[in-house]
């Protein structure tokens, strides 16, 4: 009894300490958008940063607004990609913003880490291209005439800088513990997979700006994909994530598939260590899991957004509500849009 109580107390203490650090910089998204991170003094006051991140903040004060936009971008994209799932990336008003969901080594945590690393790389690169940051700009390695014969010009996205900054800022806590912890290895892998989702989908965008819109004069530049595309890629990796475990190879520790019959994961795949909870019930002991009571569901769907699965078999309420929407919109010269008001009865289903 006494021994068991001591072990449980130590475990709870460990979890509390552990949870105090994981992915906490995402709390930057909760900052007021009116304010700006403009001086080193502000770095000390930011919640969610570990000491080394505070140091990076002080040395790169001008980059931090982009990091904050990256944090917001990560949360928005996560909530979009998981909008029809039981866990829908709901956030808390505390650190960590996703609660316990990201402190366990689940598939969901893998997605969060990947999308977060990607969003910082994305936001910083955008800040470079827009001229917001003096220390970086367009990618000047892209110039001259391409093998296809068009002129490289315009502003090629400096993705190398964005990725390097994301690596230094986001990965820093995992690297500070060395690479011994299986959770640290998982996080580092998934962070890099998130950044790869941008790197492997860079594309060439072109403009024809000859006379009368012709392509006699054509310039092209390398551009990041839209972040929705990045989110879609990482979500696909989430759906096909590989369960792994830690194994010693010589003096190194590596993550290998738990099931040896599975093919090894690549640098672009997501990996996870622990099975996910079912996310069905709200559990006060597990902040971040809200349960599915009250969630809208689709009565006719057999997928995860269907009522049977979304409500975990508990059943659902049905209510008929009147929805008023704009319809038959018409543009009038010059210049306004006039719409009619359409009313219709819609059946809404919510989980019990």
């Amino acid at each position: 009894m006494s021994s068991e109580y001591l072990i449980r107390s130590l475990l709870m203490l460990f979890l509390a300490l552990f949870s105090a650090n994981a992915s906490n910089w995402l709390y930057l998204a909760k900052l007021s958008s009116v304010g700006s991170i403009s001086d080193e003094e502000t770095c000390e006051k930011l919640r969610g940063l570990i000491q080394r991140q505070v140091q990076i903040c002080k040395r790169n004060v001008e980059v931090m607004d982009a990091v904050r936009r990256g944090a917001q971008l990560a949360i928005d994209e996560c909530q979009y990609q998981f909008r029809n799932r039981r866990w829908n990336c709901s956030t808390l008003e505390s650190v960590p913003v996703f609660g316990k969901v990201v402190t366990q080594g689940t598939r969901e945590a893998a997605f969060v880490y990947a999308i977060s690393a990607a969003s910082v790389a994305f936001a910083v690169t955008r800040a470079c291209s827009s001229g917001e940051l003096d220390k970086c700009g367009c990618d000047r390695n892209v110039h001259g005439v391409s093998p296809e014969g068009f002129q490289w010009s315009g502003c090629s996205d400096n993705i190398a800088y964005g990725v390097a900054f994301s690596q230094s800022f986001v990965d820093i806590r995992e690297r500070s513990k060395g690479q011994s912890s299986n959770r640290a290895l998982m996080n580092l892998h998934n962070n890099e997979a998130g950044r790869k989702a941008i790197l492997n989908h860079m594309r060439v965008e072109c403009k024809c700006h000859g006379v009368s819109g012709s392509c006699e004069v054509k310039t092209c530049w390398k551009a990041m994909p839209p972040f929705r595309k990045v989110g879609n890629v990482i979500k696909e990796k989430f759906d096909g994530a590989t369960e792994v475990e830690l194994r010693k190879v010589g003096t190194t520790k590596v993550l290998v598939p738990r099931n040896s019959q599975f093919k090894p994961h690549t640098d672009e795949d997501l990996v996870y260590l622990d099975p996910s909870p079912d996310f069905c019930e709200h559990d006060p002991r597990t902040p971040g899991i809200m349960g599915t009571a009250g969630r809208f569901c689709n009565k006719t769907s057999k997928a995860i957004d269907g009522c049977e699965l979304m409500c975990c078999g508990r059943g659902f309420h049905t209510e008929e509500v009147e929805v008023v929407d704009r319809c038959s919109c018409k543009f009038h010269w010059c210049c306004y849009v006039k719409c009619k008001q359409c009313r219709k009865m819609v059946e809404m289903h919510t989980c019990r």
Partner: protein
Amino acid sequence: MKSLASLSLWRIIILILPLVSLGQTFEYGWPDNYDKPPQCVDIPVDLRLCQGVGYHQMLLPNLLEHESMAEVKQQAGSWVPLLHKNCDPGTQLLLCSLFAPVCMERPIYPCRRLCENVRDGCSPIMAAFGFPWPHILTCDKFPQDDMCINTPNDTSTSEPNGHPPVCPPCDNEMKMDVILDHMCASEFAIKTKIQEVKRENMDRKVTLQKKKRTIKMGTLKKKDLKKLTLYLKNGADCPCTQLDNTRNTYLIMGRKVDKQYLLTGIHKWDKSNREFKKTMKKLKSHKCPAYENVFK
């Protein structure tokens, strides 16, 4: 019990509205959810393509992904000569709905029918100058519903009867703005006389006299200038009074397409004409928009 149900209903309605708005925002919002939204700016006085279009403010970036006003002006400049041709009443409206789109909560594109009318009316004239209908104006991508821009009085234009259309390069107003616009849209311009005009397939072949003076060199080389032969594209049968009169001296403009030199403009060199004299004087200081420097 009834009161409780009513409260529940209102709560659901309140929940629904943001969802509906969210759906609308997602469906009609700007394509990239990260970029800053376009800004509403005054149409500048020197964006000549869109003066008098019927509204005074535009979105920047525009619907052709031109990001700066310098880029808009530079790209719009080459379309001004087409306006002078009056090939379709909707030409300016189509072009400006893309180059200088109206300021609305969401982008309003030109209607497909407007685009098709302008394309059908103007692409033969553009072809005469060696320009295909450009990819940026492909009509299939424009909407067909009511949420698009059409000519305000949507009456189908009646075909002009009787006179065959004048050859586009020969159908020019003796006006400084028009001549300068064509000068900028052309690659070279020379002062010379016509030696011979001959039909060749669908075109007319124009041989120039040896004696030439270069007004605008462009991409032309001296050895090419010596034996220069110009083609009036698709101009075998259309009237061109300038080519009928070989005794006059002309200001001749052209551009190179593949291996042919196309005639893009021909004006009588008329020193007694005040407008022409003014144009020649202005030409010395006139600067065409440079296509390279916007994209450093």
